[in-house]
Structures are given as C-alpha cells and as structure tokens.
C-alpha cells in the first residue's frame, strides 16, 4: 500500500512552507529519519526527516515551490518497513509531528477531537497515557477513545497530536492571499489597508525586488505587533563595571570549558530572574478570552542578525540554568542559526526577547515587541562614563537599556519596577551566580 507523506503541521500558526531542496530521488530506498526535504518556513529553514523507511515512489514538489500544510510531498511505495513504533517523545515537537503525518489524508480529515463517550465522569485513560498526552500537549479529555469502553489509548493521543491544532494556534498572522507560487506576495493584512502607493516611475526609474520569505515574515509580524500593541518604552542605565570585570577575569577559565562568556548570557539570566518576580512580563494577552496567559516557564529569545534577516532563537528554562550553561547554549544556538541549521523548536516557544545592538553602535534603540510576547529588552553599547559616586566623579562602565512593553498588560510603574530589578541584578552580578 503506497503511503503519501504530506507537509505536517508546523505549529505556531504556520500555514505554508517553501521547498528549498529535495534531498532524495524517486526510486531511492531510504531509512526512517533520513533527511527528506529542506523547507523554509516563516520561522526558519528546517530539514524534514522521513517519517518512515521505504522506497520513494513519487516526489510531488520541487525546489522554490510554496506548499500548504497538508499538501502531499512524497509518496512511498509498498514493501518497505512500516513506520516504526512511536518515536520517543523527547524528540522535538517538529520531529514528532512530522512522523505522525503519513496518515495519508490531509490533517484536516484525520481524527477530529470529540468529547469522550462518557461525557462526564473521570477521564478514561491510564496514567501513562495521560502523561503522554501532557508531553504532546494534548487535552486528553477532548480525545475520542477507541479502546474498550471508550478508553483513550496512546495511539488516540498521538493521532490527536498530529491533527491540526485548530483554535490553539497562537494568533497567526492572517494568511490572506498567498499566491500559488512565485516569491512575491502581498503582506497579510492586520485590518488596516495601506493606501495605494504613488507611481514612483513618474519621478525616475525604479527597480522592484521580491521580498524573501523571511523578510516578508518579519514585515508581517512587525506590522502586526506595532499595529496591535500600544508600545511604551522605559529607559535606564546599568553600571556594569563589576560585571564586566567578572567577565574579563573569567574569559579564559570559561574558554577552557568551551564557553565564550558574553554579556548576553548575564543579561539573559538577569532578565529571567526578574521575570520570575514580575510574571506579567512573561505572559501573553488573550484579548478574545479577556485573560492574561502567564507562562510558568522562562524561555528567552535573543534577536540575532543573520545575512537573511532577523531571527530570534529561543533558549529554554533560563531561570534554572547557571550562567555558564546559558553561555554554552547561546553559543551553540547562535552557530546553528548562522549556519541555517536551526530546528523549528530552536525558534519558537519564547516568552520574552532580548535584542543586543551593542556591537553595532548607537546610544539606544526602541525595539518592536516580538508578538505575542509582552515585552522586549533592548541593550545598546556600554560606554565608560563619568559618574558621580559618593561625591566623586569616577569612570564607570554604563550599559543603556530600554524596556519596551505592552501597555495593555502593564503600566509605566510596573515597567519601571521590572527594569529596575534587571538593573539591580546586573549591578550586583554575584546574585546572578548564586541564583542560577
């Protein structure tokens, strides 16, 4: 029986992807997990592994083509190994979902969540199945059980995980009018229509260049954020003389452990610690529900400039990690991003973003909030300044900071308190060392 592998749900409200490369040829016999395709989504360039082992019968796509979630990619012929048993759940969500897709039918047609037969009463699933559901982010109560007496089985949970997330998608940029092919497409609307542009040709010759996939995504998301979120910015400066000394003193020791110690690692730690005490800045506003979604995890994004454009890789559970570990992960992640090898999971799930423009100069910058987060911390270049301390003018290394946040969620005083906490942590860096 031939099996067709379709573009799996990529999460984060992503509805389409551009095929960058096809890594197999028709007739190839490949093993499960072998690289199949490279696609570029709004978020990243990712490699999609083969969900099953077998002979590639037909390839339905070609490089440069943009395909929608659920569109067929590759058909495998019979006679090969069935999909191996479920992948270990520790794999990235992208991988796990990918592996689910060979259900041939487009996801929309697969098991739609229905309330269990009993309707009321306790959930009909074993504790192990319930744990699996939590791992895959599935509400086990909403899954139709196919086991005896309507019991929800592991397979039911996995099928639900592979189904389209439906309303759970976090407010995707409305994907209006995506042209069938070709790189140039209009931006998605956020409700306001931009007026028509004048004919520039009347003043001189022009050239039109299509936007890259990533550029278009950035444009859409920035429009969304700047249009939807009333931004407020709070300015402050942190005296990082001591912190800088610590970094300088420990550079070699850290390098011996394979870590390049940077200010950013300390900034991440300070921000995460401050966030644990100011949870409204580690949240998302749900206007439809009239609720603030407070996240109990602290995954911080770091804006990274790449040749292709701005990318925000995410480091997980910063609050729990020592600075050295953060530095190590940051280095590895930045390298993956620059190499275009970042996995989808490297780029999503963030709760707060830091953008460090220090290397490129400037005295301050007011960044746009990374929607749907609540706040973003901008950091400019630290400079030696003449500062008055106890009546004396002394040279101190001052770091300009800007905290830009969503005024729907927090007020100026809240922002000031939060920013002050970050500044205080940076000025007493020993706290960053013993507070993990």
């Amino acid at each position, binding site marked *: 029986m031939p099996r067709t592998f379709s573009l799996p749900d990529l999460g984060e409200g992503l509805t389409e992807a551009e095929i960058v490369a096809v890594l197999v040829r028709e007739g190839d016999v490949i093993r499960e997990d072998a690289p199949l395709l490279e696609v570029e989504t709004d978020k990243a360039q990712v490699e999609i592994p083969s969900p099953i082992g077998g002979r590639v019968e037909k390839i339905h796509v070609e490089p440069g083509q943009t395909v929608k979630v659920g569109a067929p990619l590759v058909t495998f012929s019979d006679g090969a190994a069935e999909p191996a048993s479920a992948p270990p759940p520790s794999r990235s969500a992208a991988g796990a979902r990918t592996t689910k897709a060979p259900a041939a039918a487009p996801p929309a047609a697969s098991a739609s969540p229905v309330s269990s*037969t*009993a309707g*009321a*009463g*306790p*959930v*009909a*699933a*074993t*504790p192990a199945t*319930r*744990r699996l559901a*939590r*791992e895959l982010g599935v509400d086990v109560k909403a899954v139709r059980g196919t*086991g*005896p*007496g*309507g*019991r929800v089985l592991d397979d039911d949970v996995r099928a639900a995980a592979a189904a389209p997330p439906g309303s759970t998608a976090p407010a995707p940029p409305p994907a209006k009018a995506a042209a069938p092919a070709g790189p140039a497409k209009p931006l998605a609307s956020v409700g306001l229509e931009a007026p028509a542009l004048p004919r520039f040709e009347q003043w001189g010759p022009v050239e039109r260049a299509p936007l890259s996939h990533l550029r278009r995504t950035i444009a859409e998301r920035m429009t969304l954020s700047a249009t939807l979120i009333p931004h407020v910015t709070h300015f402050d400066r942190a005296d990082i003389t001591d912190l800088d000394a610590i970094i300088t003193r420990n550079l070699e020791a850290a390098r011996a452990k394979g870590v390049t110690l940077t200010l950013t690692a300390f900034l991440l730690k300070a921000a995460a610690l401050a966030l*644990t*005490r100011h*949870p409204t800045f580690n949240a998302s506003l749900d206007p439809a529900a009239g609720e603030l979604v407070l996240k*109990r*995890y602290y995954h911080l994004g770091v804006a990274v400039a790449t040749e292709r454009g701005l990318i925000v890789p995410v480091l997980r*559970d910063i*609050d*729990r990690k020592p600075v050295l570990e953060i530095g190590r992960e940051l280095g590895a992640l930045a390298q993956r991003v620059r190499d275009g090898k970042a996995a989808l999971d490297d780029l999503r799930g963030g709760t707060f973003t830091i953008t460090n423009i220090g290397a490129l100069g400037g005295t301050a910058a007011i960044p746009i909030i990374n929607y749907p987060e609540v706040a973003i911390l901008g950091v400019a270049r630290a400079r030696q300044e003449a500062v008055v301390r106890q009546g004396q003018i002394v040279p101190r290394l001052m770091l300009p900071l800007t905290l830009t946040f969503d005024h729907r969620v927090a007020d100026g005083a809240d922002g000031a308190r939060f920013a002050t906490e970050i500044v205080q942590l940076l000025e007493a860096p020993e706290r960053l060392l*013993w*507070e*993990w």
Partner: protein
Amino acid sequence: MVMGDLVDEVEVAVLGGGPGGYSAAFRCAELGLETVVIDAAQRLGGACLFEGCIPSKALLHVAAVLSEAERAKEFGVDFGEPRISLDPLRKWKQERVVGKLARGLAAVAKAKGVEVIGGRGVFEDSSTLRIEAGETLRKVRFKHAIVATGSRPSGLPGLTIESDRIMDSTAALELADIPERLLVIGGGYIGLELGTVYAVLGSRVTVVEMTDGLLPGVDRDLVQSLQRRVTQLFAAIHLETRVAALREAGAEIEADLEGRGTERFDRVLVAVGRRAQSDNLGLEATRVRLTERGRFVQVDERCRTEDPRIYAVGDVTGEPMLAHRAMRQGKVAAEVLAGRPAAFDNVAIPAVVFTDPEIAWCGLSEAQAKAQGLTVKVSKFQWAASGRAATLGRSDGLTKLVTDGASGRILGVGIVGPGAGELIAEATLAVETAALAEDVAATIHAHPTLSEGLMEAAEHLLGA
C-alpha cells in the same frame, strides 16, 4: 544578627517532613536537585508516622489480636483473660514500630543527600525562608519551595478547657492510661478507630456524633455492617447529638450532651477533624493564596501555587487529608519543578477506615456518580457467599461495584470487611486505569480469598 545571617542556597527547600514533604524531597534528590527539608522536629515522618497513621495502626493491630483471641472461644480455643501491660505496649509502638520506620526514613534521606534542617520555617519573601530554632537563626534561599506543612487536629470551638483529661488524637495515641469511661466526640474515622482501640483495651466508650450517622459522607451500604459491630463494642453511640459544654470536676469530666443531660467521663477524645497548617508560615510575604474556606493553600493540578517559585502538597492543600495523596502530590511537585510533564490528575484516591470491620473505597460512590449525571450500574457482592469469609468466621462483608451503565467502566468500588484496606488496591488500579467490569471478571482471582469478591461483583454485573 551581629554575626551576619547564615544563608544557605539550595535549589529546593521543602517545608515539613511528613509524607508529602519527604516524598517530594526524595524525588527532587533523585532528579538531581539539591534539596533540604525544614522540619520543626528535625525528623522525617510527620504526623503520619509520629502521631497518626502508623501508631494508630499499631494499636489497632493490638486491638485486632485481642478481638480475635476473644472470638476464638467460638471455635473452642480459650486463651483466658488477657493481661495488658501498657509500658511494654507503648515501648513496642514507640521503638519497634515508629522508631524503626523513623530511622529508615533518616537513612534514606542520608543516602539521597537530603539534609533535614531543624526549626520553624517562615517565608521572608518568595525566595527566602527564615528558620527559627531556639536562639539561632538561619536563612535558606531557594529557587523553589514546596509547602508540606500538613494539618493538625481541630479543636471544638467554644468548648476548649484546659485539662489533661481532654485529648486530641495525638494525645490519645500516647496511651497514658486506659480510662474506665471515655467520651469520643466525633463519629468520623479517627473517633471510630481510636474508640475501637480503647474499647477493646477495656474502656467503656461513648461516641457522640453531630450528624445522623457514623462516618458522614461514606456510602451507607458500607457503614451498615460496621455500625452493627460497633454498637456491640461501644457502650453508647449518640447520633444527632452535640456536646454543649465540658467541665472538669475533680478527676472527671462532665459533659452536657444536648437533649441527653449530663454524663461523666474519665477522659474525652476530641476527634472532630483536622485543619490545614497554613498560618504563621509567612505566606503573606509571598504570592501564595489561601482558600476562603479552610485556609488551604490554593494549588493547581501541578501543585503550583500563585507564586511561581512555590509549590504545595498534602493536607495543607485540602481534602482528602490522606498521607498517600500527599505522597503522590509530593512526587508530582518534584517532577513539575524539574520540568517534567507530571500532574496530580489521579482519578482514584483510596480511603480506608481501619476499624473492625475495615471500610475502604475509591473512585466515585454510587451517590457521587449519580450526582454527576452518570447512568450507573451497581453490583453488590455479599460476603455471606464467600468461602474465604466463611473460614474466617466473618461473613459480614460486602463488595460494591459502581460502573458506567453504557461502557461498563468501573467508576468506583466500596468494600467493608476484614482486610478491606488491602483489597481496595486492586479496585484502585481498576478505576485509575479505566478498566471495565469485564476486565476484572475475566481476571483470575486466587481461591479461596476475599479478593474474589470484586470478581464476583463484576461477574454478577455482566450476567445481569
């Protein structure tokens, strides 16, 4: 402090060394987190080991031996009148039972590298605990704290008088003497268990219960058989009766029982429930919230409080106040704070009353299932038909099965009879894993055992 505070930094600080606290601490340690337990008595075990589950079960075992010896006369074996020596009995309970288990827990803590700090822990803020132990003051800064401070016996509002003769469950377990006349206020499980101990040891026990039945809230089908037995065991059971006043009169306590006049007792046991120990912990310095009713620490399914650094488990988080609930929550809290996808989503929490006969239940009772709008099928197996019950001379048991009418899924089980506390384990597994009556009916149960009761009840349901 002049010397400057002694501050320790840990990943996890567990407040309270009871079953919830030590389960959480051990699991944290297993997950590689540096963990300390702060316990007022600097020991692990809590109320469960030192003044609850364990010592009461030790004494109930003694009561069971005495009852069995008495009943042996029925089949021609007479041991004569028992002579009870309280000193060796107390020593056995304290050293051979409680002491041995306490040393065991201390050894586990050591092996897992969990430090037990003695003192009263008070939150200074969301990341600092102040530990007061006599003159010394110590501080612990934590990344996460788990509140597991448990519960303590409730007093009788308006009736508190100072007297050694008025005991709570903790004092009653000390077994200071065997009073001639004992008044037990409260017909719940604590009152009935301790009333049984004292009655079998020789006290004339009067039980006073405010509501219209013993064990309020428990399925009447299960209580019936126990009620018959304790009616013989106790001198009197007064239902729908309040205690209006208690007075010390010489070496006696006078009790005014509403509508029944005044009676005199040598001791009084107040067993009207337990309340959360959420006060004096400095929780107001954190973002932790307490419930209006009961002052319980509010937690979600993952044992998280409103304060992102602070978790809570066990009695301090609400009903049912049972050690095994606390232990499960403790493990959940540990895994959640370590980033694992755990949740306290258990369907069945078994409850056991260690009277004679024992009563045990789990999952939904018939009444609860109906209140939820479920269509249920109920099956009862009377132990009069059980071979094993006959050989024990105990045919007064009952196994009751509550299933979903449509699917046949087992929603709840209630058992009354000797060994019900052990038998409920199979039922709990069945409910937790969503087993069907058919699954239990088709599982071979050893013959002749009391465990066949559950299979019989399931078969009966399928045959019907």
